[in-house]
């Protein structure tokens, strides 16, 4: 999945958050939506919407199903452009998912983190780039290799 968004910056002073609104006590990574109606009370007529207050949609609820196991990584390079993953994109990696064949995964390879498509056929594992300029890599025991996590979503800013 591809999303268009600008990554929020935690410390940016231009982000206006009204003081007095409870903040999420959860992990720093998952900012919760603010409940509607938590703001000031109008002195005039009561709002007709007060009986219909619902929680505003929260993107991290949609993108992060297992908060404890989810990490954000930044893409470097263009080896996966064919899969719609570009330099600078944000990877949402869920380590609780099992790395089935055909999924895009993050793996450790020779001391680095790499994002590739995992292919398992006849007991052999291959890390496939999605860019003809990059060769496929059949991983064997000689490689210092491990699956790090499964890419659940990619956030792309066009």
């Amino acid at each position, binding site marked *: 999945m591809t999303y268009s968004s600008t*990554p*929020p*910056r*935690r*410390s940016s*002073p231009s982000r206006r*958050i009204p*003081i*007095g609104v409870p*903040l999420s006590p959860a*992990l*720093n*990574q998952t900012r919760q939506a603010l409940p509607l109606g938590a703001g000031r009370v109008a002195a005039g007529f009561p709002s007709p919407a007060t009986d219909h207050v619902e929680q505003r949609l929260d993107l991290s609820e949609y993108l992060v199903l*297992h*908060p*404890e*196991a989810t*990490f*954000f*990584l*930044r*893409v*470097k*390079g263009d*080896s996966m452009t064919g899969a719609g993953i570009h330099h600078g994109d*944000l*990877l949402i990696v869920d*380590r*609780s998912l099992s790395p089935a064949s055909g999924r895009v995964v*993050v793996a*450790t390879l020779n*001391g*680095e*983190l*790499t*994002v590739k498509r995992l292919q398992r056929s006849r007991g052999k594992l291959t890390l496939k780039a999605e860019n003809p300029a990059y060769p496929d890599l059949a991983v064997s025991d000689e490689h*210092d290799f*491990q699956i*790090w996590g499964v890419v659940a979503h990619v956030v792309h800013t066009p």
Partner: protein
Amino acid sequence: MTTTIALVDGNNFYVSCERVFNPALECRPVVVLSNNDGCVVSRSNEAKALGIRMGVPFFEIRSFIKSHGLTWLSSNYALYGDMSARMMALLGEFAPRQEIYSIDECFLDFTGTPGKVRDHGRSIRRRVRQYLGITTCTGIGTSKTLAKLANHVAKTHRQYQGVFDWEQLSLLEQEALMDTLDVGEIWGIGRRLSPQLKAMSIHTVLDMKRANATLMRKRFSVLLQRTVAELNGESCMNLDDVAEPKSQILASRSFGRPVTALQELREAASSHIIRAAERLRSQHSSCSQVTVFMHTNRFRNNDPQYNPAILVPLTVATDDTRRLIAAAMSGLESIYRTGFRYKKIGVMLTGLQPVHAVQDDLFSTVEQPRATRLMSTMDRINRIYGMNTATFASAGIDQPWRMQTAQKSPRYTTSWNELPQAR
């Protein structure tokens, strides 16, 4: 019903957190140093194999960098704190009750839950390993003391593969194993008490288990009497699953370089007070005493040594940062002496009490509600926009005395600008 308690901890926790995001650190000796890059606080197995002990000053092992390819890192508490919160949340799902004991370990109370607790220990190991990349060890026993000791066995005896339950041995085998363990491995004994116990011919865990509990109380304390009972399988210490408000709050740091000027000490003490006061307010307490202490560097034998401390009582208990800073400054000025190279300064807030119980004195003014509002507004600003967005000028702006963290890794999980990269 028999109590069943597990102690779960993350192996080499700080080093393990670093390795998750920097796989190049695998399979090589790595240490993490304390604040200000002073002493070793976490070691990889390879570093342990080099004979590097916990707590040694960095300068003693510096030569290993060249001779054995040792990698050292400054501590990255933003990372360890987040990984700890994740690990504790995962562990809490396994048992009805949890006591978080430190950043990398917690007790889980499995009393009355069906199934073998050892199997839970194995599931925990698989789950935390997969979700977080951190290896855990689990020790299981009928008391906290036995669980803690079982955890030590799980770590040091490979055949148990990181999960050990006293239950899996016969009583005879348990005692044979206890006879091989040094008395200093028992929770709460440590390096301080073990020489005294050894002087009484209590050398091993088994000796302690068979010791006379009443005698222990007479010679030492009721705590040691309880330890003996707990080693015999009787659970005497409850799980503190509700965090009690702290009865004292300490904030201290070593300096990045020796400090001699009063102004720099003032700034450092102020910035410690600011942090301590935030913690004070977050637990809805106020305090009636402020202690200021400082140290020179005890490793510099040629430097004159001076380690003063002073307790400043307040007429009215307060949680107002401004009043706490004022108290700390007056204390600091009265203990400050020129001619010393200070290494560390710290503050401690004591005499804590709930805010609503504060007794006003005759001379207090009616500014209290305004001060409360100011403090809670500052705390909120700092929570939202990050630490020290709104602060006090007395803490200094440049803070040249701040600690050295020469080799700190990125805040991989708490800063948008420092995310790990994948090629």
